[in-house]
Structures are given as structure tokens and as C-alpha cells.
């Protein structure tokens, strides 16, 4: 591990030098000795991992030194080593954020040594955590997790880029399996909040009576079974992002409470009186049409406008043209790598089969189809026979919409146009209809 940088601030040259030499016995310590508070403050750019600070300094007191350091380095452990056996001073310093308070006596050496070892472990854990966070950020670089070149997905990338650069609430809509949570994570881990938590909660998966305690937390004794304080998701995600999936499922009572939190930027734990300020970015998602839910009276209009923020509508896979193949190849590589086999090719017939399918389960379904195909194919090529779609009846799914024949015709032509990159000649040929039919529909804004 990297060395632990320790500042000793001690006006007694003899005592300071002794501490420096003592702590330097551990080669993992890099110890600096300063005689005054000002000297210590002037060297803060060296970024110490901890400070051993004498309370009674000749220029400024330990309390003042700490007050100047803490705003810029709130997590830096400062151990006060003092000759003052004054309980009030000790309490004041601990309240002001000191890590510990030691009286200069026979035990100082051992206490300091032990405290430093404890801090060393904490610093090591913190460094490892930061490295992991960096890795997660790289993993969620959105070009790494959301593959595609279609105009529809490129538009999504543009909006995500805007979301990353701001703090605006983001509302993600899209059919099931389009990757709403992935988009939310990518926005968080690429934003300035990426060092703080990303907390996801599926509103529809939590019973209505529990959602409030999940979001806001509760105090001990707030209700039967509340045996200890619980911190809610809003508080946990403070400084970071809270992702509320399936927001349309939230009941009316909870919608009112959520609206208040968004407006006031503060929460109160259930059974508590303290008002807790929060700085939590909200990203919400739903597979439903939220404005429709507002019209039906199922969702509060005021909350809808508060949550709308930057809307990102994720296109269904069937509207993403050749992204189907790009994703299929990406998943093939991923699953082959996981199985430790050479990346398989996808035969032309298998590709055509994939392109012809509507993927009601979107990217999630494609991923499963490819996972199975990789397993089923024994050679280096995934053939048509290895591509198996789910048991659901595609025709029945399509007919579930109960549209008119003209509407079905319009949808089919629109689908094929998107599939063949708006190539009217090719679309007409594939569907066995005249080009003029398509041109007429385009002219009449039917497509």
C-alpha cells in the first residue's frame, strides 16, 4: 500500500522530534514535524492522511487549526495530543471533529501508535473503495454499457450527455427490457456525484405501507418492530442519486409526501422530529405513459411536472434497426468470453431471423436469446436453428393491441421502413406492395 503521511504539529521541539522518530520506526509512515499551526496550514497541500496536533501551540490554538482544516478536509483524522487534562477542552475538540484526544502521559506512545494503525486500516479501505468506485465509473461509461449506432439510440446518448453535465431530475421511459436502470446508473457514474451512492428502489416491488419507511427511514420505537433507527434511501443517497423505478406504481398518499420532499429538499424520519436536509438527485423511470396516468387521475399532475425534468425515452429494440445485430454480436462475445471459448460468428440466416423478430422483451430478451444460442451451438458459428425465441406467441402479442386493419397496415409498413433505414424500394419489395402506397402514406403523414 502507499505510505501513510503523518503531520506532527508540536511546539516542544524535543517532544515533537521524539514522536517523529517513534512513528518513523514504521517504514510505512512518512512523518513531517511542524512547530506551529501556521506551518501546518501552509503545508496542507502535501495532503496528510492524519494529523497529530498539540492543543497548546504558540501561534494559534489546536481548535483554530482544526477549524481551518475541517472545511476543506472533512474526513481527515486529527488526533489532539495535549498536556491539558481539561474535560471541557477535550469535549469541545471532539465535538469540533477531532478523531481522538490524548493526554501527554506514559500511555501516549501506545495510544497514538494504536490509533495510527487503526487509521492506516481505514485509509487503506478508503483507497480500495475509491479504486473500486473508479472501476465502476469506467464500467458504466455509457458508451461501454449501451451499445448502438441507430439514430434513436444516438439521440438517447445526446440526452444522457446533458443529464450527466447537470443536476436535473431525469425521467426515463421505455418498454420493459430497454435498459432504464442501466441508463440511470450510467448517468450517475458519469456525473459529478459518482463518488457518492447510487441507490435504486423499485416502487412496485415494495408494499405501499412499507415504501415510506424505505424512503425516509424511521426512529427507534416509531412503530411496533422499530427496534432501532433505520436510515432511509433518500438519506443514504444524499450527495448521490436515488433511482425510483416504476414510479407510476406509487400510491396517492406517498406521491404527496414525495412531492413535499422534492420541494423542500428535506425529510423527517418516521417517528422523528429532526428535519434532515438532503442533496439527492432523483432519476425516475416507468414503462407506463405517465402523462396518460395523470389524465386518468392516477398520478398527481404537480408531481408529474416536478419529476419530468429531462425526459429520456428509450426506444424499443425493434425501432433500433441494425442495433439488433450489433448487440447480438456484443452479447455473443460476452458469453463466449465468460465460457472461455473463442467468439462465435452469427450466420447470415441467424442474423435475418434476429432482424425479423420484434423483441417484445427488448434488449433483455435479445441477451437471453443469445446466451441460449451460445450454449446450444457446438461449433464456431451460431446458426438459425440456435436462435429460439420465448414461448410467448408473437402473433397473439401483436394482435393484443386491438387496432383497425388500416392501423395494423400502417404499423407494419412503419416497422419495415425503420428496419431497412427508410429504404422505400426495399420495404415495398419485402412487403410485396407498391412503392406508391408507401409514398402516399408518407405524403399523408401516416408514417
Amino acid at each position, binding site marked *: 500500500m502507499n505510505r501513510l503521511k503523518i503531520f506532527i504539529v508540536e*511546539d*516542544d*521541539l*524535543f*517532544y515533537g*522530534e*521524539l*514522536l517523529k*522518530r*517513534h512513528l518513523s*520506526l514504521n517504514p510505512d509512515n512518512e512523518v513531517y514535524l511542524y512547530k506551529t499551526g501556521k506551518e501546518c496550514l501552509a503545508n496542507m497541500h502535501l495532503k496528510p492522511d492524519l494529523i497529530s496536533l498539540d492543543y*497548546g501551540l*504558540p501561534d494559534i490554538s489546536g481548535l483554530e487549526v482544526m477549524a481551518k482544516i475541517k472545511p476543506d478536509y472533512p474526513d481527515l483524522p486529527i488526533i489532539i495530543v495535549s*498536556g491539558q487534562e481539561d474535560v471541557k477542552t477535550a469535549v469541545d475538540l471532539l465535538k469540533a471533529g477531532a478523531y481522538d484526544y490524548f493526554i*501527554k*502521559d*506514559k500511555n501516549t*506512545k501506545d495510544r497514538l501508535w494504536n490509533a495510527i494503525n487503526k487509521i492506516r486500516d481505514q485509509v487503506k479501505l478508503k483507497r480500495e473503495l475509491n479504486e473500486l468506485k473508479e472501476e465502476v465509473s469506467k464500467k458504466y461509461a455509457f458508451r461501454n454499457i449501451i451499445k448502438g449506432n441507430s439514430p434513436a439510440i444516438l439521440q438517447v446518448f445526446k440526452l444522457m450527455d446533458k443529464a450527466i453535465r447537470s443536476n436535473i431530475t431525469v425521467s426515463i421511459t421505455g418498454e420493459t427490457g430497454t435498459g432504464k436502470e442501466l441508463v440511470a446508473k450510467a448517468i450517475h457514474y458519469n456525473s459529478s456525484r459518482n463518488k457518492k451512492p447510487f441507490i435504486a428502489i423499485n416502487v412496485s416491488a415494495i408494499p405501499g405501507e412499507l415504501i415510506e419507511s424505505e424512503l425516509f427511514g424511521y426512529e427507534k420505537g416509531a412503530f411496533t418492530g422499530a427496534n432501532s433507527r433505520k436510515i432511509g434511501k433518500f438519506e443514504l443517497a444524499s450527495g448521490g442519486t436515488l433511482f425510483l423505478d416504476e414510479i407510476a406504481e406509487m400510491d396517492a398518499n406517498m406521491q404527496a409526501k414525495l412531492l413535499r420532499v422534492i420541494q423542500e429538499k428535506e425529510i423527517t424520519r418516521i417517528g422523528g422530529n429532526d428535519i434532515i436536509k438532503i442533496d439527492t438527485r432523483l432519476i425516475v423511470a416507468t414503462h407506463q405513459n405517465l402523462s396518460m396516468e395523470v389524465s386518468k387521475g392516477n398520478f398527481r399532475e404537480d408531481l408529474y411536472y416536478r419529476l419530468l425534468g429531462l425526459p429520456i425515452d428509450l426506444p424499443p429494440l425493434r425501432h433500433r434497426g441494425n442495433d439488433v445485430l450489433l448487440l447480438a454480436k456484443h452479447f455473443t462475445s460476452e458469453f463466449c468470453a465468460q465460457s472461455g471459448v473463442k467468439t462465435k460468428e452469427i450466420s447470415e440466416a441467424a442474423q435475418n431471423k434476429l432482424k425479423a423478430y420484434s423483441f417484445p422483451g427488448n434488449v433483455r430478451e435479445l441477451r437471453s436469446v443469445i446466451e441460449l444460442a451460445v450454449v446450444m451451438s457446438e461449433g464456431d458459428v451460431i446458426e438459425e436453428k440456435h436462435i429460439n425465441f420465448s414461448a410467448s406467441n408473437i402473433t397473439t402479442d401483436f394482435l393484443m393491441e386491438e387496432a383497425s386493419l388500416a392501423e395494423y397496415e400502417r404499423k407494419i409498413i412503419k416497422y419495415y421502413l425503420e428496419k431497412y433505414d427508410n429504404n422505400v424500394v426495399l420495404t415495398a419489395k419485402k412487403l410485396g406492395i407498391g412503392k406508391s402506397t408507401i409514398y402516399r402514406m408518407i405524403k399523408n403523414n401516416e408514417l
Partner: protein
Amino acid sequence: MNPSEPSRLTLLKEYLGDDPVQIKEMVDLFLATYPDDINTLEKYCTEKDYKNIQKTAHRLKSSVHLFNIEPSHDLILKIENLAKKSASCDEILNLTKRFKSMMDNELKIIKKESEQLS
């Protein structure tokens, strides 16, 4: 030094991992800085500068403690406390003189012990 008395260098040895070179260097540092400190303390006593008497006594206290000299430690602690209460300067000055004479003897012992280190 009475052979039954604890070594003046016990704590220093604990701090410095029994390294004779480092122990000698630290003893030399104390012997070099102590005269200034005691002279300053006397000066503040004559000037009735309680705040600085307290500060200097406080600083000397931790060094004296590190040499295992209990009587001198108790005396310098008393000086610090009296200065805190702004007690009679004559009393503080008398105690400082006593402390100085006690320490003169102690310094000889410390020096001797340091020289005996292999």
C-alpha cells in the same frame, strides 16, 4: 544515581526501539534546548508574565516526564498550575529555582546514562 532508581532513559528507549544512537541524539537535543527553556522561565517569572510562565512550564513538563523524573515533574506541574491561578510570583520564582537546582543534578545523571549506552 541510586541503583534502585529507574533509569532516566527507560521511556526514551521505549519510544526509540532501544536504538542507542537515536537515544543519544535525543538526550543531546534535550541538553541543548533545556538551558534556554529554564532561562526563559526565570525571565518570565521576574517579569510576572503568567501566561508565558504557564506555557513554558507546560512545555517543560512533557520533556521532564519523558526522563522519568517524578519530583521534578511534580514541581514543574505545580509551577504551571500556580501561573494559571496568577499566584504569587515570588512563590513561583522560588519553585523555579528549586526546579532548576533539581534538574542540574538530573541532567548529570541523564548525561552519564547516555554516555554509558553501548
